[in-house]
């Protein structure tokens, strides 16, 4: 099937894109990499009158160092993010998650900002974004604002981005020297996970000095496993300590039940995956 007809503009600046968005309101849809949007259009689940393609705005691409944070342009393809040395050094969890994201073809086209703005609760980047306390830079008619990850994800496929706004970049506070591990459970290759756990940790002298854990597909938005984090901070990085703490991984979660697994199953399996993710992260951090 092919999409319903639409008009198309490919502005060369964020200002032009915002103007087009303001003029057409909710009849318009932003096209980033298109790896989620185009299937939706082809299946006729959505039929916008206007597509605003951000693909010609060069300023939205690339990864840069900005002091205590790295900044990832919203239109940076996953394959570029995954291979970027700044990401590997300061936000290893992102690199680990990107390696598991869809397949090579999708990683070449799909974009970091597009995937986050799409806000699929089973998406691969929401958990890492929450774990790393990412800051979302959003441009609108009144200027630019920054939204923390805890407030960015509002509900199923819904974010803090308003209809007249565009996500331009994502700032990730540097987590230099932190170990990281992404644990993803899929039924078949390159599918959405039944659930996924993204963990990153800093270890000092065999003790977990700090840890952050994000969960995917355990609710209508990506979640933080705060109970596990609290239980592990300051604890020895041993398998027993991790196993005990990860029993709390599903605290506050409200996972879906579907053909891939019941909510009850997910609430159990997330504790197992959390243990694997945390052990991987602390081992990576030198424990």
């Amino acid at each position, binding site marked *: 099937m092919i999409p319903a007809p639409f008009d198309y503009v490919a502005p060369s600046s964020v200002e032009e894109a915002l103007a087009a968005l303001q003029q057409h309101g909710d009849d318009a849809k932003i096209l980033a990499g298109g790896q989620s949007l185009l299937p939706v259009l082809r*299946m006729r689940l959505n039929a916008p009158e206007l597509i605003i393609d951000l693909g010609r705005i060069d300023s939205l691409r690339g990864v840069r160092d900005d002091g205590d944070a790295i900044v990832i342009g919203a239109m940076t393809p996953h394959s570029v993010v995954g291979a970027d040395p700044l990401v590997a050094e300061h936000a290893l969890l992102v690199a680990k998650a990107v390696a598991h994201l869809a397949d090579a073809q999708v990683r070449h086209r799909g974009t970091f900002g597009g995937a986050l703005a799409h806000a699929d609760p089973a998406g691969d980047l929401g958990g890492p974004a929450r774990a790393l306390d990412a800051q979302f830079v959003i441009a609108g008619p009144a200027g630019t604002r920054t939204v923390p990850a805890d407030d960015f994800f509002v509900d199923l496929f819904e974010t803090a981005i308003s209809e007249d706004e565009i996500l331009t970049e994502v700032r990730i506070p540097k987590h230099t020297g932190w170990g990281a591990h992404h644990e993803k459970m899929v039924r078949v290759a390159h599918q959405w996970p039944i659930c996924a756990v993204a963990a990153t940790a800093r270890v000092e002298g065999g003790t977990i000095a700090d840890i952050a854990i994000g969960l995917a597909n355990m609710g209508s938005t990506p979640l933080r496993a705060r109970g596990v984090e609290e239980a592990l901070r300051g604890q020895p990085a041993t398998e027993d300590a991790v196993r005990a703490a990860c029993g709390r991984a599903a605290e506050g979660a409200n996972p879906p039940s579907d053909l891939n697994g019941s909510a009850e199953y997910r609430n159990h399996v997330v504790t197992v995956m959390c243990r694997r993710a945390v052990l991987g992260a602390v081992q990576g951090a030198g424990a």
Partner: protein
Amino acid sequence: MTRINLTVDGMKVSDDVEPRMLLVQYLREKLGKTGTVVGCDTSNCGACTVHLDGESVKSCNVLAVQADGHDVTTIEGLAKDGRLHPVQEAFRECHGLQCGFCTPGMIMQSIDLLNHNPQPSEQEIRVGLEGNLCRCTGYHNIVRAVQYASGQLVAAAGEAGGVAEEVTPA
């Protein structure tokens, strides 16, 4: 209609297209490049894989207008002067196909994989071809074809059909 100018298999082309036209439709219906096939409706199968500026993409998941100004290579642009591309040759040598429908996409993705990782392990090949489905379940020989193309397998001498054998490390 939107004007697009791009290069396809080394040939400059220019057309007015509807913005909703998919790149794969453009290749097949406007340019007659039916070597690139459509195997699914969900962008899962990878049969339509082509290279856009040298990197593999699913051409059912790219609009033709997004390819404006870019360079596209399809399965039909691989052979040079009547000689198959080494990866095409490897698929033939190792019989990396049954019905052949997934083959164009498998070959295009295999080339992309080898461009990024010239000596992939078997596991890396299987992961690297994750976005390509073979419904005949012929993955085994497809993996062998990629190993062969990477120089990690040699054909056994004298056997008709060229049965590939693993290279024994010296």
